[in-house]
Every structure is written in structure tokens, then in C-alpha cells.
């Protein structure tokens, strides 16, 4: 595979600035509603706030790549006196937890940087400036990115087996 220059879109998270309001979760779910903004439900958000105020843990995490299998990470980390689980920092939708899964279907969700907007809406709605949008150029291996549907299908295949999935699709197309 060849190397190409790619624009990397990221959200920089400054946990010191987070005020714990969860506006990021709310606006993310509203943006991704169909039709847009017609409903909101933080459970459908692609960003979540790990919020343990008594321990001063305020950690916004946005959804990254889907992970078909559980990893080995179950360690605890203590940073500046605050205890975090290893999973707290993880951006993957994985089989071992509910985070970043569409609550009705269980399919993985991934941050899309709000596609056609100037900046992701969680950044725009974060007046505390805990979230800031960053772009940088990076040389990366050229790769074929999975589309959202492919990611969904892949997770279904992981869950039920590829053959079952193929059979189901075949049955469904016959019914139609």
C-alpha cells in the first residue's frame, strides 16, 4: 500500500476544563437524529462523559473504531489521585460494555465529526472549552475505510457469524 497525506480530524479533550454538563452528549444525539434534531437521547450519543464528581473524574470520550473482541485491559490507573478504569479512556465500541452502541439495535456508533458541519457540534456546544477541534495533516498508509453500514454489518457478522448473516440477508431479499 502506498503512503498518502491525509487530513486527520480530532477533538482535543481538556479534562481540567470540563464542567460536567453533558451538553456534548445531548447535542450529538440530536444531530444524529432522523430528521436532524427531531429528538435527543444521550444514550444514542457518540460522545459520553464519564462523570464521577465526588472523585473529580470528568472525562469526555468520543467514539472511535469498533472492536470486535474484548481486549485484555482491565487495569486501574491513578492519575493525580483519581482512579480510572482502563476502559474509561477507550473509544471503542466493544462486546464487553454498552458504551457507543445504538441502544435499540446494539450496533456500534462511531464519531463522524458531524460530517458537513464546520466543527463537531459537541465542540460548538462546549462553552467550557473542554473540547476543541483540531485538524492536522499526516502521512498515513492508504487504506480503505469501512463505511458506517459496513461497520454495522461487520459487528453483526462478529456477533452471529458471517454465514448466518448471509443467510438472513438472502432470506430477507427473497421476502421482498
Amino acid at each position, binding site marked *: 500500500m502506498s503512503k498518502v497525506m491525509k487530513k486527520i480530524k480530532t477533538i482535543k479533550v481538556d479534562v481540567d476544563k470540563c*464542567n*460536567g*454538563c*453533558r*451538553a456534548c452528549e*445531548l*447535542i450529538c444525539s*440530536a444531530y444524529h*437524529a432522523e*430528521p*436532524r*434534531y*427531531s*429528538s*435527543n*437521547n*444521550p*444514550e*444514542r450519543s457518540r460522545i459520553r462523559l464519564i462523570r*464521577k*464528581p*465526588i*472523585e*473529580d473524574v*470528568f472525562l469526555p470520550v468520543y467514539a472511535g473504531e469498533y472492536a470486535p473482541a474484548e481486549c485484555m485491559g482491565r487495569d486501574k490507573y491513578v492519575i493525580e489521585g483519581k482512579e480510572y478504569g482502563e476502559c474509561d479512556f477507550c473509544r471503542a465500541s466493544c462486546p464487553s460494555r454498552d458504551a457507543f452502541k445504538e*441502544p435499540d439495535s446494539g450496533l456500534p456508533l462511531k464519531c463522524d465529526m458531524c460530517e458537513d458541519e464546520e466543527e463537531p457540534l459537541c465542540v460548538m*456546544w462546549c*462553552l*467550557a472549552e473542554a473540547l476543541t477541534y483540531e485538524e492536522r495533516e499526516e502521512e498515513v498508509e492508504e487504506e480503505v475505510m469501512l463505511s458506517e453500514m459496513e461497520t454495522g454489518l461487520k459487528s453483526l457478522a462478529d456477533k452471529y457469524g458471517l454465514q448466518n448473516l448471509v443467510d438472513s440477508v438472502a432470506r430477507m431479499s427473497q421476502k421482498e
Partner: protein
Amino acid sequence: MRYAETGYNLEIDLSRGNIERVETDPKLTEHHLGGLGTNAKILWDRVPPEVEPFSPENLLIFSAGLLGGTPAPGANRTIVSTISPQTQLMAYSMMGGFFAPELKYAGYDKVIFRGKSPKLIYLWIHNDKVEIRDASHLQGKGAVETQELIRQELNEPKAQVAAIGLAGENRVYMASIEQGRSSASRLGVGAVMGDKGIKAIAVRGSKDINVARPAEFMELSNEVLEYIKAREEKPIPGVMPILAGLGSPQEMKIHDEKWHTENFNWGNSRTRRRDYWTKDVEEKWRKTQDNVRTRLISCYNCPMKCGATISVPGIATYMMKCFSKLTYTMAAYSDLDFGFKIAQRATEYGVDGFSTPQVMAFAVELQEAGILTEEDMAGCPSDNEGRFYWLLDRIVRREGIGDVLANGTYWAAQQIGKGAEEYAHNNIKKHEQLPLKLGMLNPVYFLMYSTGEKINITQIEGQFPQAPFPTMEEREEFVKDWIQVPDEKFKDYLLKWDFRGEYSNPYYPTVEASVDIVDWQEKMHYIDDALGMCAGLSSFPLKPPYHIHNYPAFISAALGVDMDEDGLSLATKRNRTLIRAFNVRRGLTRADEKPPENHWKKRFPELEAELLDAYYKFKGWDNQGVPTRESLEELDMAYVAEDLEQRGIIK
């Protein structure tokens, strides 16, 4: 599909252990909007005036406001309504935090409790699954501690829990309900919760909240955020720092407490210390605050940072909001360090940070006057701070003299006798007020103190400056971008208002202007309390992002109805009148409508009577403060008139 609201209430009969999900009538929402409005309607319909606060017939309602859980920034208030054991009138205490939106996401607008549980329970609401669970193992646990214990027990770290502490369990009249970084503190709602045997309500929701016209609603919400940003860069000049910005007074942020410490009274509203604030005190208090404040924090979907996590070394972390840092400090004539320490214990006990310190200071003053005897205070430490801890423990446990003090200064004074009534001098309608005593009668504040149905001055004011600006330039500057005024005449009221001469207190603002100003301020609060909007972004600060001109658009876009300013004014007038009728039915009379005797040094009985007369008339009430049949009919509430007539209240 219902928009903005879920359309369902939870009805819990604690005596029978019965749980029902009940669909509500959308017409009621159009009439009363939601939140406080529909709470008042339910209480009117179902709680006749004979019902005592601690009767199984009393209802305890937890309600999200109409906009709660929608993207409207700051719509996160829970409105708790019941009969207050303190005042015997309707209590509507409110809290921010995260409870109301979670309740909406679980699929409910309100939780309505009736009856009494034979044993201590907590309610667990998880979307469609609702269960009454045993809470005997949580008996005596702290209100903050309980929230975490329940989350662990349910293995639901995201559950929002509203809980009472020991004070609520023991029906202390100043018991609060604690939740997240907030609490419903005033008027003893925690005592009713304890009386019903409810230790806590835990809720977790993962359903959608819909709005009818999404694009429009988002545009309005974005405008609010933009305005908040712009307003952040433009604090109001010439007012005290805590009032210059938005949000509730930024007590957790600011260090400069000159205004409060020198203008509010110390003890149980006893001593004004005009020269208290020195460089040394300032430096010491700044250090104290910086040392214990871990982070400034918010409620759900709100960019303001009105609360803070507080970690005093050696004491469990808790969350504090607004003014509690000074209430204990000043009641005990102590310093800020003491205030932060004792507030932690008080928060775990679940008590109102306004009333409780005043009741304790009242006890100390009675002791010093020899009215409380050595026997009453047996076992009390002799040092000042120790005495306050001791009193707090006795009050929440209702032990010895604490059992009497637990009923607040009004009832305690009656019970103690021997001249104790003289020391309970800071009540309105039997409820402790801000320890603020001033010189000259202020006509606007006179009306708000006297007539406020909330019986809680701190959240009746807002919108109109508390004092005139000294120069015409400042006044002109202020009114220039004052888009929030419902009418241009309010600008004129402010431009004319002066410190001295013809246009100064008490005869200016004039009677008519005072009534207008109070009506506007009050209206905004009634709108917020129905919508579940935090007063800190609307009815409380000067020049807020929400106002009478953009609220109708929010409601229209959320609900999909056509709401205009007149319609909104009518709905809020309906709510205000219904609560008045409810309280009148419970025995409220004109004689109760007065500020504490010694609130202002200079009083003007004739003017005060004139103010009350004019206010009542403006509201469509008779000169006893009873809504007339005509005005009730105009508000489509003839049924209220009929009830009041049958009882002989309308003659």
C-alpha cells in the same frame, strides 16, 4: 406522539405498593404548561384543604418541566410540590442537577406519590421497569452517601438519585432532598418525603425526547448559547460582582464577600457588621476557598458553573451551590473555614442551608438570653463552633431541644414561649428568610416579600435592578440593549429611579410602577418553574438569554402549538392564580402578607396598604387577596370559583 413532554406520569401508591403509568391530557399542558403549573392543578384537584402535611392524603410530586431534557440550555429543574409542614401552604421547592432530564428520558413527566409506606423504601425507575425496593439498610445514611450506595447496589453508575438524609427521615421541617450537585431545600419537602417512607428515588432513562419543529428549536437554542457567550464578555457594570453575570449568584467563583458580610445580618439575622471586610479577612477567605474548591461544575446541559465540588482535608467531598458557604459562617459569627466544614455534615443530613443555620443561631441567642436553660442545652460544648455541630446533630435527630428546634424558628418559639417569639423575627408566613435587614422601605421588595407564594425571596426577584444607578449616563447605558423588557415603560421606570429626592424609595417606583415591576419579575419565575428552566438563565439575573419575547417561540417549536406572548402571559397568570387560590383555601389571608416586622427600619403603613391593594386589584383579587369569580372565569377556572364559593371564601 407527544412533543417536549412524554405524556405519562407515574402514580405510586405507597400504602398499597401500587405503581401505575398514567397518560396525561395534552389540554392540561396547554393550560398550565407543565412543571409547577400542572403540579398545582393536581394538588388543587386531589388535596383538599383539610389534608395535613404528614397525612397519607398529602401528595408529593416530582416533576420535570416542559422543556426538561430538550436541547434548550439550562432546562434541568425538578419541581417538587407538596404541602409544607413549615407553612401549611403549598411548597414548591426546586432543584437543578440531572434528575429531571433523566426522568424524561425514562419516559415520565412526573412521579406522584400518595399514601405512606409502612417501611423505608426507595423507588427505582428504569425506563418501563419501576419497582419499590426495600431501603431499610439505608436508614440513617447520609443524603450524598445514599446516592452512591444505590448506584452501586443497582450497578448503574449513570442512575440519577434524589435522596434524603437523617433530617428527612426524622421529619425535620427544614429537611432537604439532595441530588447531584443540587437540592430541593426550602419548605420542608424532605420531611414529607421521609414521612412517606421514601429514602430515595433512582432513575435511569434511555428513551428519546422529541420536539415538534426541530430546526426552529435548534436555532433558538443556538441563539441562547451565543447570547450566553456574548453576555460572558459583557458583565453588567455598576452592580455587585455576583449579579454582573448569568447563572445563580457565583458564590463558588468569587472571593469578594464584602457585600454579603457587611449588608446581611449575622446570627439569626441579628447583627450587621459594617466594617467586617478587611484586607486580612479577604486574604484569609480567598485562601480557604481556593484550598477546598476542587472544580466549578454545572447542571445538565448548562454552560454556567454555579456549583463546586468541595474537598476539605479529612472530610468527605461534597457539592455546594450558591450561598451555603456563608449561611453557617455568618450564623455562627465564625469564618469561612467553619462554613465549608459544617456544610458537609449538613448536606449529608439533608437540611436547608438557609433555615438551618438561622435556627441554630436562634437557639444560641435564646440560650444567651436565658430562655433556653442549662437543662435544655445539657451536654452542649462551650466553644462556639462545637455548639453549632451539637445543635445540628440534635436537630436532625430530634433529640431533646433539637426536637423543638426541628420545627423551625416560628413553631419552636411558640413551643418554648417565655418571650422566645421576639427572637423569631425573620419569618414570612412562618418561614425563615434571608438575614437581610435594611433602612428604607423598598416598595418593589415589599410586595415580593409579602405576596410571594413561594415564600422564598431569593427566587422571586430578578429582571429589574435591585437599586437605582447613580448617574443618568449609567442608566442610559443600561437601558440601551435592554431587550428583555416586556414594555418600554420599564426603561422609563429605571431612567427616573434615583437614590434621593422625588424619584427615590419608598415613593418611587410609584405604586403602579411597583406593581408592574413585581408582575414582570414574578411572571418570568412562573414561566421558568413551569418549563423547568433554571432561573439563573432566565428570571433571576439581569438581561438573561430567555425572556418574554423568545419564550413563546421555544414553546411553540417544542410543543407544536401556536404560543404567543399573550398566551404565555395568560397561562402563567392561571398558574399564579391557582396557587393563590390553593393557599387561600388553606387559610392564607391578607394578614399573613407582610415582611418581618423589623425588615426595614423605616416603614410606611399607609403606603404599604396601598401597595397591597393595588397589587391585589391588578391580579384580579379582592382586597383580601382572594381571586374573584370574574378573574377566575377569564382564566377558564370557574371550577375554582365554585369551590371557593361553596366554602364561603368568595362571598
